[in-house]
């Protein structure tokens, strides 16, 4: 159940990365892809970084996610390059908004998804501890990632229940809001209380330093990822500085 921060599978993965490497990747992809700078060296860097989450997902055995990401990205890319120049008005705005969001945000989002779906909670905690990040940030973060799938499940169940009562249209938004959100909050708060008690019985609130059996450390794949990040950053900085 706690396999990944978000529902990762437990099966032994031959290929592993240190959580800190993953964070470096997220920071790199998020900053550089979203800055949206074009021209010069960035025409090479952009597609390369966009392929990073694809390659990683593939290496970690998430073939389906990897392929659907690649298709969506390719579709958005071709929409922007081929279809948008020949359209105008409202259609162009709609295409721009949809494809633009996929084109600019998808790589970062998928990298984020990759990180949360392949990192175990205790790995995450171990890495954060090594980086001396306060538990005031890491505990809420870990709880959050544990909770996203729960919220999704509960919300889907409530949606079905309300559908049976005929509360399913946006015609009465206030009613929708109340009937969907109140039950969701009720159940999530209850689940949260239980989770909190279960964590406390496992000694989360103890004063001593908690130990961790996760083996984290840097290996060859980590080194390669860091090299990639560094190269991208150098190119990015030089590009911003107007040199290439």
């Amino acid at each position, binding site marked *: 159940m706690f396999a990944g921060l978000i529902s990762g599978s437990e099966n032994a993965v031959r290929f592993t990365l240190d959580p800190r490497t993953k964070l470096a990747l997220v920071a790199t992809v998020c900053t550089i892809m979203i800055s949206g700078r074009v021209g010069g060296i960035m025409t090479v860097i952009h597609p390369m970084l966009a392929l990073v989450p694809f390659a990683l997902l593939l290496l970690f055995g998430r073939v389906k996610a990897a392929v659907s990401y690649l298709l969506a990205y390719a579709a958005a890319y071709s929409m922007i390059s081929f279809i948008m120049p020949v359209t105008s008005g409202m259609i162009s705005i709609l295409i721009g908004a949809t494809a633009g969001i996929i084109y600019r945000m998808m790589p970062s989002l998928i990298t984020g998804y990759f990180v949360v779906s392949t990192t175990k909670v205790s790995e995450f905690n171990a890495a954060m501890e090594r980086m001396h990040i306060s538990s005031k940030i890491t505990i809420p973060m870990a709880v959050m990632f544990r909770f996203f799938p729960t919220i999704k499940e509960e919300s889907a169940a409530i949606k079905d229940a309300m559908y049976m009562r005929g509360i399913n249209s946006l015609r009465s938004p206030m009613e929708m809001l109340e009937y969907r959100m*109140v039950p969701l909050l009720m159940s999530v708060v209850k689940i949260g209380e239980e989770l909190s008690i279960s964590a406390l019985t496992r000694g*989360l609130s103890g004063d001593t330093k908690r130990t961790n059996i996760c083996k984290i450390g840097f290996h060859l794949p980590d080194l390669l990822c860091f090299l990639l990040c560094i190269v991208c950053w150098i190119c990015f900085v030089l590009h911003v500085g107007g040199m290439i």
Partner: protein
Amino acid sequence: MNQQSSKLQAKDLITVGIFTAIYFVVFLACAMLGFIPVFLLAMTFYGPIITGIPFMLYLTKIKKFGMVTITAVICGILMFVFGMGYFTMFTAVIFGLAADFILKAGNYTSKKNTTLAYAVYSIWFIGNYIPLYLTRESYFADLVSGYGQEYVDTLRTYTPGWMFLVLLAACFIGGLIGAALGKAVLKKHFVRAGIV
């Protein structure tokens, strides 16, 4: 009220995690409407109204200093990951802290202070719009590559300079309305169910 320790403990941190998760999911659901350029701006107003419900419930659980700030910091980090730029992290810390001070001044029980704290907290979202004004030309130039000229032109006409103040006010007023809505829902449902 638990006075024996004013430091944050594991239990409080878990509470922060749970409510930040709900808050952020609701928030993101609102933000999805931002596809349409007008909604991108209207978000400052209707976003705080809708997220008022989970947040007012959250505020009833807060008895210690710093919890709102942590929520704000996490939201700021997540917004960065979602590609809204790094300004949000600063506004999140500023307005999160401000909200915490307001709550503390009201001893975490004052109704007036919780309303005000939520309205002030809601302003953190303005950080997403700062690049639109501070680095206007380069921001729009960068945007063209992904969103196309027409989308950018529409956005530009909707965001003259004075719009920033309107957005700021919209966050605050939306926050006040959201707080009122949240309180009404609390009274109608949660108090009766014994959750608060």
